């Protein structure tokens, strides 16, 4: 890609919007200490807290409780520009509780399971002697789309779910067999050729899949809001089994049903995330078991904009930081509200974008095309040094930028991510990119004599040692590491970036997918509630209260709440 870093820093526009009328390079400022009233959202919160207290007769939110009466807003409460979008939002609206798009992104992952159809078809054909044809498959798809939301199909006098409450639930089919795909009613098919029409991506994916056939199953959002992710495979498998019985006129009690159930629950099931060990005690399809490679494959920007590897990479960073930092570490593992602050640094105000595009330009000039730089430590050292020094100089030259990333962990994550993503795109190798991450951390710590919170003393000081080493429980290729990888399991500000680094290598190689083509195809489906090809834009819609999520209960509750 021909790319030239612009003459003005990319983050300047956001800073101008945030610090309107102020000199961005001035090191001193008059602090007005206007308090919470300077911010519309804080005023809204205070009024809401008063209403809640009046309604329930018990005190709730009161901004005056903060720091013994020293309310938020002793400095300017600035908004956030969602990177690459024109949208400026309040920081509060980037907490996932306030942002339905963020909730839906995780819901759409948690409620998904991919189930192979070939094992079931072989059971039907070889064991029962039934004929499986495109017509019979279409009949099955009709049955399963009736029953997956929670409808009865082989038993009379059954309770069922209200279709309006589960309208986001459906099953689609995808296959590497173009002939079969053409013969199935298009409403049931994720069309690989249409969706992956750039840079020969469809051929890459179909070559990896072979002529296998799979179901992308999305159970109702409202179900995973009541149950854990482990329920997805069970809910799905039960309805799949019933649908086979109905579509192929089977006996509900014959032994082959067990084979179909085993295939749907285990043998042919691809969970989005692995089960965690007992000490963390999470089922499959919970975020702690989601590998960085799968996370990268869920994001779809590489499919629609492969000529901009930085954008593809940073959309994954945005996906990962929200999921891993805000939801997984911030809530499942820790609690509290502080983790949002770490994550937003990576997808707001065009800062990470600026640092990474700078590195991309530098790498193009030094090494040439994407993915062509040597896969060695010298490349990681070179790129990480230049990108980190540039980023540190930006923070030094723009005090408002330093103020925007007022925590060292924010700065550390962003600078190391820019270094690593630059290196991933340049080399096409995630391990070399990971090495650049650690180099950036060392440079940052030594230059400013500070890094992030205590956790950065753990994984970021010892992590280089297992970049190349693949000893069990110590190292692994980055695509297969995940949120529960030993050194990564406890530290905010890292995991989403690692997912982005994974993507950077494959964007550098212009690959159609990072880790699993099935995941890539499944989340390419435009029928999903959350649009995984525009993660940051979706977050902005959520923040601006224009995103309509699934799983709402308004059909069955009193109106006018």
């Amino acid at each position, binding site marked *: 890609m021909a790319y030239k870093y612009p003459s003005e820093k990319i983050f300047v526009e956001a800073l101008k919007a945030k610090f309107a009328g102020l000199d961005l390079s001035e*090191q001193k400022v008059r602090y007005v200490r206007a308090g919470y009233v300077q911010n519309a959202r804080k005023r809204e919160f205070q009024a809401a807290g008063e209403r809640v207290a009046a309604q329930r007769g018990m005190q709730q939110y009161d901004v005056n409780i903060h720091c013994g009466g020293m309310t938020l807003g002793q400095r300017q409460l600035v908004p956030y520009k969602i990177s690459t979008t024109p949208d400026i939002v309040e920081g509060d609206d980037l907490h996932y509780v306030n942002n339905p798009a963020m909730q839906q992104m995780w819901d759409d992952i948690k409620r998904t399971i991919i189930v192979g159809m070939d094992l079931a078809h072989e059971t039907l054909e070889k064991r029962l002697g039934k004929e499986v044809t495109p017509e019979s498959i279409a009949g099955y798809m009709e049955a399963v789309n009736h029953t997956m939301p929670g409808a009865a199909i082989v038993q009379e006098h059954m309770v069922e779910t209200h279709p309006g409450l589960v309208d986001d639930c459906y099953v689609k089919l995808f296959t590497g067999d173009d002939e079969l795909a053409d013969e199935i009613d298009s409403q049931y098919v994720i069309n690989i050729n249409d969706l992956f029409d750039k840079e020969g991506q469809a051929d890459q994916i179909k070559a990896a899949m072979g002529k296998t056939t799979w179901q992308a199953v999305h159970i109702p959002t409202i179900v995973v809001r009541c149950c854990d992710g482990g329920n997805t495979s069970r809910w799905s498998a039960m309805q799949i089994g019933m649908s086979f019985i109905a579509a192929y006129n089977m006996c509900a009690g014959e032994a082959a049903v067990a084979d179909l159930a085993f295939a749907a629950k285990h043998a042919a099931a691809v969970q989005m995330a692995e089960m965690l060990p007992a000490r963390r005690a999470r089922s499959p399809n919970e975020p702690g078991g989601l590998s960085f490679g799968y996370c990268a494959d869920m994001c779809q920007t590489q499919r629609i904009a492969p000529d901009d590897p930085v954008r593809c990479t940073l959309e994954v960073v945005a996906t990962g930081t929200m999921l891993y930092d805000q939801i997984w570490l911030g809530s499942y593992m820790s609690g509290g509200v502080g983790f949002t602050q770490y994550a937003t640094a990576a997808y707001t105000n065009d800062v990470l974008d600026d640092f990474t595009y700078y590195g991309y330009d530098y790498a193009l000039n030094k090494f040439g095309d994407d993915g062509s730089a040597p896969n060695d430590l010298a490349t990681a050292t070179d790129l990480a040094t230049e990108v980190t020094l540039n980023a540190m100089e930006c923070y030094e030259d723009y005090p408002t930028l*330093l103020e925007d990333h007022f925590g060292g962990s924010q700065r550390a994550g962003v600078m190391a991510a820019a270094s690593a993503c630059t290196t991933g795109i340049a080399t096409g190798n995630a391990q070399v990119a990971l090495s650049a991450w650690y180099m950036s951390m060392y440079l940052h710590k030594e230059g400013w*004599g500070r890094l*992030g919170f205590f956790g950065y003393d753990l994984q970021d000081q010892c992590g280089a040692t297992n970049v190349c080493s693949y000893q069990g429980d110590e190292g692994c290729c980055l695509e297969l590491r995940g949120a529960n990888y030993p050194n990564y399991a406890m530290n905010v500000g890292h995991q989403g970036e690692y997912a982005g680094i994974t993507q950077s290598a494959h964007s550098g190689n212009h690959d159609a997918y990072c880790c699993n083509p099935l995941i890539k195809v499944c989340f390419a489906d435009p029928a999903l509630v959350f649009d995984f090809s525009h993660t940051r834009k979706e977050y902005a819609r959520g923040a601006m209260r224009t995103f309509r999520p699934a799983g709402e209960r308004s059909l069955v509750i009193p109106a006018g709440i």
Partner: protein
Amino acid sequence: MAYTPQYYPGASHVAVNRRKHMSGDIEKLRTVSDDDLVAALGHRAPGADYPSIHPPLKEMGEPDCPVRQMVEPTPGAAAGDRVRYSQFTDSMYSAPSIPYFRSYYAAINFRGVDPGTLSGRQIVEARERDMEEQCKATIESEMTCPALAGLRGCTVHGHSLRLAEDGLMFDMLQRTHMEGGNVIEDKDQVGVPIDRKVNLGKPMSDAEAKKRTTIYRTDGVKYRDEPEVLDHVHLVHHRRTMYGYRPETAAETAPGVGPVTYHTV
């Protein structure tokens, strides 16, 4: 205790200052009375006895233990003091010290201290009188500018915020203010008002802060212009990587040592 100074790379005055902080070879610039320090720390009332969490060690009948025989207790441990903290925040705008070098200073030059290092704050936990000794040495020395650094037990994000118009590092809790050209502290570390005005002295001028600072900055000594420190970092990275992979090759292929030589960009 015999002590051999630590060494640190770099030729600039920033690197020299880092070596000074590590070795404890620092200049005393001001005097803060014991009572004023105790008030600012906020752990006990000035003049009050040290609260204890166990009897003096001599009265405890300690077990026969070779480690106990080798290690002389610090005064605070011997007396049974509780463990308390001092925590400093240093502005990114050329404050004299930086968190890691505060920690190196404490760990190298004092016994019985437990330094913790973060981006906006640096804490030292120790037996109360030992902590006070270390804190007093720090706050009276060239490691601390009262305008650009401060004792802050909480809300430390001022370290990366723009300075206030009067040159003070931003502090949400307003623990200090300027009065007659001096920095006055009238709240303790966690922002609780104290019954006195602790005079921390005059702020350093911009020129003096830049002369005494240990941080690399574009408006001072540029990090990019300190190749020996960058090469040192590159060496650390290379060796940590290779020792985990093929330790037998780490030394021979290290930048500047073996055939692979890194040239700073």
